[in-house]
C-alpha cells in the first residue's frame, strides 16, 4: 500500500466545481480550501445541516447474528450498500434498522473481499427512503464530506452520528478514499456523503491517526452492481483468483517477481523470477499493488495477456487465472 500512496497526489485541481448543474446556487465558500470568515463557515453550516436532514432517513444500522455495522439505502426497493466485512457470506439473514428503530428483514448479497464492498437487500415488502449514489470521479482532495453511521452499533434514541471532514486522499486507482471523518467500530458500511447529499464512499477501516479513516469509493459499487446484486463473492484470498507469484514488497516503482510457485498458473505461463510485470490485461502495472488489484478483479479461468520485461527483452505471455489453494 505504501508504494501506491506515493503516487496518489497528483489530482489537485483547484476549486473545481463539482456539479455544473448546481453551479449557480453553490456558494463559493463550499469550495474554498479553507473557510476564511464566519460568513464562509455559515455557508458551509447551512449546507451541512440541509444535507444531513435530507439523507438521515436512509442511513441504517445492520445486525447479522452478533455482528453490528451500518449501511445506506440507495434504491427505494431496498438495496443497501455496506462494507464487505459486514455483509460477509451471501444469502444470510440480516436485520436492517431504520433511524426510527424499525427493524426490517434482509438478505446479504455479494461482496468484493479485496475492496471491502458489500450489499444487502431488504426483503420486507415496501418502499424505503433512499439516497443517490454520487460520482467519485468528480471528487477532489480537500472537498468537504459528511460521515454518518452507528458507532458501536444501533442505540435507541440516538440518530445516526454525524462527522464532518475533508477528502484527504483519493487513491489513484480508486481503491479507497481517506478522510478525517473519525470512524470507529459499528460505523463500518455507513455512508460518506458529498455536499450534494450523494453517497461517495462506504466506511471500511481505520488507522491510528484521526486522519486515517478509510472508505470504499462508491464507484466500485456502480461498476460491479450486477455482481454484488447477484450475490457473487470475489477478490478474496481463499476462493479468489490466484496466479502463484511472490513479489518484493520493498521495491518501489516496479513489480518484480521474486519467486514462482511450482505448478502454478504463473509457471505454466512461463513467468520466471526477476521478471518485471509491465502490463496485466489492458492495464499498466507500476507497482505490486497494481498487480494485486488487477488479479483480484479477475475470475478463476479467465485468460489474461501479460507483458513482462526479462533482462532487456519485452515478452508477451498469456496466463490462465487459477483459484487460490485453500
Amino acid at each position: 500500500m505504501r508504494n501506491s500512496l506515493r503516487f496518489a497526489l497528483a489530482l489537485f485541481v483547484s476549486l473545481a466545481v463539482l456539479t455544473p448543474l448546481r453551479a449557480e446556487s453553490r456558494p463559493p465558500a463550499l469550495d474554498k480550501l479553507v473557510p476564511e470568515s464566519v460568513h464562509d463557515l455559515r455557508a458551509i453550516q447551512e449546507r451541512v445541516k440541509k444535507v444531513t436532514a435530507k439523507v438521515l432517513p436512509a442511513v441504517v444500522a445492520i445486525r447479522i447474528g452478533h455482528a453490528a455495522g451500518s449501511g445506506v439505502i440507495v434504491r427505494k426497493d431496498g438495496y443497501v450498500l455496506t462494507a464487505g466485512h459486514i455483509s460477509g457470506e451471501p444469502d444470510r439473514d440480516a436485520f436492517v434498522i431504520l433511524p426510527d428503530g424499525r427493524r426490517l428483514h434482509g438478505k446479504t448479497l455479494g461482496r468484493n473481499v479485496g475492496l471491502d464492498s458489500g450489499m444487502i437487500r431488504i426483503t420486507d415488502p415496501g418502499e424505503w427512503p433512499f439516497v443517490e449514489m454520487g460520482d467519485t470521479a468528480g471528487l477532489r482532495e480537500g472537498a468537504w464530506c459528511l460521515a454518518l453511521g452507528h458507532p458501536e452499533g444501533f442505540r435507541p434514541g440516538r440518530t445516526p452520528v454525524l462527522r464532518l471532514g475533508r477528502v484527504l486522499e483519493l487513491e489513484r486507482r480508486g481503491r479507497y478514499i481517506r478522510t478525517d471523518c473519525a470512524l470507529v467500530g459499528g460505523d463500518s458500511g455507513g455512508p460518506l456523503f458529498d455536499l450534494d447529499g450523494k453517497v461517495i464512499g462506504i466506511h471500511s477501516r481505520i488507522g491510528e491517526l484521526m486522519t486515517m479513516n478509510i472508505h470504499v469509493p462508491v464507484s466500485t459499487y456502480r461498476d460491479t452492481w450486477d455482481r454484488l446484486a447477484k450475490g457473487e463473492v470475489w477478490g478474496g484470498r481463499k476462493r479468489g483468483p490466484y496466479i502463484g507469484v511472490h513479489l518484493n514488497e520493498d521495491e518501489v516503482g516496479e513489480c518484480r517477481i521474486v519467486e514462482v510457485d511450482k505448478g502454478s498458473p504463473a509457471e505454466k505461463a512461463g513467468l520466471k523470477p526477476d521478471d518485471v510485470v509491465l502490463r496485466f490485461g489492458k492495464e499498466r502495472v507500476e507497482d505490486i499493488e497494481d498487480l494485486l488489484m488487477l488479479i483480484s478483479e479477475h475470475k478463476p479461468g479467465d485468460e489474461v495477456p501479460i507483458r513482462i520485461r526479462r533482462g532487456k527483452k519485452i515478452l508477451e505471455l498469456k496466463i490462465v487465472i487459477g483459484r487460490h489453494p485453500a
Partner: protein
Amino acid sequence: MTRSSTSRAPWTVSFWLVAIIVLLEAASAVPAQRERVPTKTSSRFLAAFRDVVAGPSRSTVRIRCDDQVAVFGAVVAADGWILTKASELKGEIVCELHDGREFPARIVGVSEPYDLAMLKINVNGLKPVEWRDSTADAVGSWVATPGMNPEPVAVGVLSVRARKITGTELTRRSSSGGFLGISIHSAPTKDGVKIAEVLPDGAASKAGFEEDDVIVAIEKKNITDADSLFKALQKTRPGQTVTVRVKRGSEIVELTPTLGKRPTDRADFQNHLGSKLSDHRTGFPMVLQHDTVLRPVDCGGPLVDLDGKVIGINIARAGRTETLAIPAEVIKPLLDDLKSGKLAPPK
C-alpha cells in the same frame, strides 16, 4: 519481505464485546504523512473562528490542580462563580482568568450525575457566559471550544442533539467495577436476568455459572433487569468475591465468583486510537454529542455555536468519534443549587 500475489492481508475480524460484536477493520500499514489539505486542526482553519470565540474566551478559565493543567472552566456569574468538570479536580485548585490573573478556588457544589462542579473565586466583574438552549442548533452546526488564545482550541460539528441516556448505555464501559464475564438476554425474566453466554475463563465460568442460569440477586440485592445488574456490578471491584443467587431450572443455587477485570476489547482498542479519552466519560443522564477532537484537559469549559452562545459544557472526550457536552438547558436549572450548596460536594 516477499509475499504471495494473492495474500493481501485480509483485515481480520471477530472479537467479543459483552453483547454484540461491533465491526470496523483496522487499516493495514498506511503511512503517516503530512496532509496537503488544511484539516480541522490546522491553525489556518481555526483562524476562521476567531470572531466566534472572541467573546466566550473571556468567559473561559484555565484550571490547574496542584500546579498541573487539569481542565477548563466557564464563568457563570460575574462575582466569581466558575462551572467545570468535577472528576478532574483534586488538591489545590487555581483558576487562571483570560487576562492572566490567578485565584485560588474552592469547590462549593457538585452534581455527581453530570460530573459538574461549582467553584468560587474571590473576584468581581467577570464576564459570564451567554447561554443558549442547545435545541436551537441542528445537527451539522459548527461548534467551537474556546480556550485562552484568539483561536479556539478545537472545532467540530454537532453530531447528535441533546438526548436522554438510559439503560445499558448509561452504565456501559463502567470500567471500574468488577467483571463477571457473561452476556445476558436483554429482556428480563420474572425472576431476574437470564445468562445468554458464559465467556470462557471468566469469573462466572470459574465459579460454575451456566448458560440459561437466571441471576436473582447479587450480595442480597435483587436483580430485576439489565440495569440493576450493571448497577450492582458497578459497586464491586475486580478481585472481590461476591455472593450471587442464581435460579437454575427450578433450583436456587448460590455461587461465589471472584470478579475479574473488564478486558480491553476491540471497541476499547479502537476508541483509544488517535486521541486520549477522559477517565470519567460515561453515565451522564443527558448529553449532546459533537465530533471535536478534544483533549481531556480541554474539557470542562464552554462549547459555543457560531454566534458565540454557550450551548453546553464539554464534559468528556468519550471515544474516537465523540466528545460529550452537558446541554445548556440542563445546566441552567442546576446553577442555583450548585451555588447554594444544596447540591453539595461529597465529603
